[in-house]
């Protein structure tokens, strides 16, 4: 079956041989838990600012539901992304709400982020060209947006991981660079705290 796919790839010249194999293999390396939570450390380097912006917090990715992203330090801020909306909370106050009915991009943003955080390369492949390599039990891919407009905004996205995504680096065309490292990853029903479950 695989060889049949490869043959097609060669015939049509659409899929280079070396790119096809890692995607399928990386997919097989990834655990696909229903619930995945963990800590993150974010380092943002912005043009026009001397110091990098360092922050950390907790995140959860729940299949069929969405993403919860809680910055805890130095500035508490929560973003919840579900299929139908993006909500930003500052404390209990809703600082921003973006409805998918008002803003069609909401669904796309959410599916991209969900795909990135859960490492779903098949889904990612719809929006980005994927180029990757595997080294023993870990993998590394770089992504280039398919939409020319997006290319001009985000020059490169790099993902690293093994059975989960371990880090994401986003390089923007403006020179801004964000790198996020994940740690203390837990999976399964118990991964989410009561507080987090309440926020969803």
């Amino acid at each position, binding site marked *: 079956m695989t060889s049949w796919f490869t043959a097609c790839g060669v015939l049509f010249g659409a899929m280079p041989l070396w790119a096809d194999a890692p995607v399928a293999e990386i997919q097989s390396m990834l655990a696909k838990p229903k619930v995945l939570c963990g800590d993150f450390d974010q380092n*943002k380097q912005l043009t026009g600012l001397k110091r990098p912006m360092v922050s950390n917090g907790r995140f959860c990715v729940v299949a069929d539901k969405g993403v919860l992203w809680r910055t805890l330090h130095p500035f508490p801020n929560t973003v919840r992304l579900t299929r139908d909306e993006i909500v930003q909370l500052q404390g209990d106050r809703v*600082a921003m709400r973006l409805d998918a009915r008002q803003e*069609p991009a909401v669904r796309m943003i959410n599916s991209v*982020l969900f795909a990135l955080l859960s490492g779903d390369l098949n889904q990612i492949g719809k929006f980005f060209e994927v180029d990757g390599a595997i080294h023993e039990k870990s993998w590394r891919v770089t992504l280039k947006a*398919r939409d020319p407009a997006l290319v*001009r905004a985000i020059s490169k996205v790099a993902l690293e991981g093994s059975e989960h995504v371990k880090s994401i680096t986003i390089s923007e065309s403006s020179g801004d660079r964000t790198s996020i490292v994940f740690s203390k990853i837990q999976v399964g029903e118990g991964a989410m705290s009561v507080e987090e479950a309440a926020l969803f």
Partner: protein
Amino acid sequence: MNQRVLLAWVWALVVCLLLAYSAHRWLGGRIAPNTDILALLPIQERDPALQQAFTRLVDSAQQRLIVLLGTDDWAQANHAADAYDRVLEQDPGLLQSANPITDYRDWLTSFQPHRLNLITPQSETDLRSQPTQYWTDIALAKLYSPFVGLQVGAWRDDPFGLFGRWVQARAQETPVRPRDGRLSVSDDHLQYVVMPFTLRVPAFSMKSQRAVIPLLEQASQAAKKTAPLVEVLVAGVILHAAAAGDQARQEMSTIGIGSSIGIVLLIWVTFQRVSPVAMILLSVVVGCLAALSVCSWLFGQLHILTLVFGASLVGVAQDYGIYFLCHRFGVDAQLDSGQLLRRLLPGLVLTLVTTVIGYFGLALTPFPGLRQMAVFSTVGLIFAWLTVVFWFPILVYPSASTSAPFVQWYSNRLARWPVLCVNRSTLLAAVLFIAFSIFGVWQLGINDDIRLLHNPPKNLIDDQIKLSRLLDTPSPVQFYIVRGTTPEMVLQREEMLKQRLDQLIEKRLINGYQAVSNWVPSLRAQTTHRQLVERSLLNEGGPLAALALRIGENGGWVAATRQQLLTSASTLTPDDFLKTAASEPWRHLWLGQVEDGYSSIVSLRGLNKTSLPELQSAAAGLEGVRWVDQVHEISSVLSRYRKYMSWVILLSYIAVYCLLYPRYRSSAWRVLAPTALASVATLALLGIAGHSLQLFHMLALMLILGIGVDYGIFFQESSTQTRQAAWLAVGLSALSTLLSFGLLGLSKTPALQAFGITMSIGIAAVWLIVPCLRYDPIPTK
């Protein structure tokens, strides 16, 4: 005798000139029917500036075409769109893609230099009321947010997210988004590629329709071949025009050919020889040719619906010829044709005048299409009439005819036809008739709906509804026109209107509005915005300074950032905006210089019938702002003219009576009463059949007067000896009129259908009633 021959020759010369002129017009291709679907709509009583603004709006709208290709997979939809485009590229002279924005970054760059001036009303309120903490929180949240997708440009260019909010608000004016170099929109099931086009050929010309429609069909086939499940939605005025044109052409030939064949058969069967058929056809052909030529000379272009209606002329124009022939082949064989004509002439003149009065009713309305129909019919009738008067006496020799058996049978019916006189059976008939009329007329509803005039095929409407739901398009028929002496004044007036509309959005009466001032605030507003930002955010010790403390930057950073922000505060003008690619979807809103001022349109999204009164009152008291509701305007014109026409009809009856009185004196009522009774009966029957009364029924009643009176005149002109001939003439005329208008009653244009049905019922009724009121000096036993 000589004089008559001379007149015949003069007429021959006129007809030859007419032939030459028609040939010249036809061969020059200048008689190309127009399919403008708006032609039947009334010219509205507007001031010139408003009318010009309106014309500009309609002109730009009719050249647009929009295509949506949807599948459940975006890539598939894209392939389908590529296939669609490839077909259209075969003929680049027809359609031009109107999709210059494929990258939202390009879109943003045109606004970047004006960032500080562009803020939303909500931001304006916040700037006036929110504390420093609120703004530093926003800036920090943006700063620490990992999500790039929601930001526009570098953080330092818009630390407090004001421009970002504005961009987001602008983006939300439409659900259409650039994606992969195309425009896209999606619903819960499908993802659509949106392809706007501009027509490079006129939408209402049949020639361009014949080129564009098949090309679109071919493109759609190509898309379906690439993606079999693709849903293709197309909307554009040209589709409606083409559909209307096809329908009209078909109806025109049905009515024209149908009534011609019917009349030929009728006359041939009646007179059983070829020459009368030839004579009648001659008069009808001259009439129709003249109508075509004179109309195309007068109006420049003929509307296709004029031709549909004009086709029914065939059934009326032959009345005069029939009248003459029935007498010629009737009892007057001893008279020569010249003497016969002299005897018939007074009646013929009266019939022509009354019929012209009937058609004249159409010309009294403000509908350009109806006026053209009136001129067409009147000219046709006059020429047919003149042909009868000048040529028939010379070309038709006196001879006795052998009547066909059915003519014998028909003629004999007359003797047994009831005659109304003062007796009990007449009284009974009168009581029954009055009861029937009251019962029927009581049930008549009223209908002034615009769909009477324009009734497009269902599939076009379905596509259009789906498309406007997907694209959340504003209402094309209800909007505000804003006027002012300068562009700045127009923008300021728009802003005042928008303040009122914001309240209606809060009440959920509308979803939103589209206006140029959304994109280009007035100079006054731009200055206010800039000063507000400077005062509330960039002030000493204000949010910017507080923010610097939180992120560990010094006073130098604050000054540099402030300086950088202030450089992007140059003024944006409507002219600047209209030159950018980003303005393409909004250009139609700016009508520009009209007469001695400037005009723009503010259009509304998500409005429904219940919000109309409040929308209308929102414009009240605002100078230069005018609420336009075309549906309502047209309906009110229809309603107004429906009432107006009932008076015109009453007055026409009086006028016709005055016209008839000098000749018929105390018998004039006998000529007029059959049409009056027939009209009442027609209304009653329409009521019983569940029809709603509309302007076009009234117009038909007017024409029933014009044509029905002819039958009364035919009868009144006849003596006891010639009564059979008159009876035959009435029968043949009525049959052919019934045929023509009966076929018109099959039209899919509701207005013409109503016209045809009313005419058919009315003429049939006149035919039946006329002999009842004949004056019989010898009482029947």
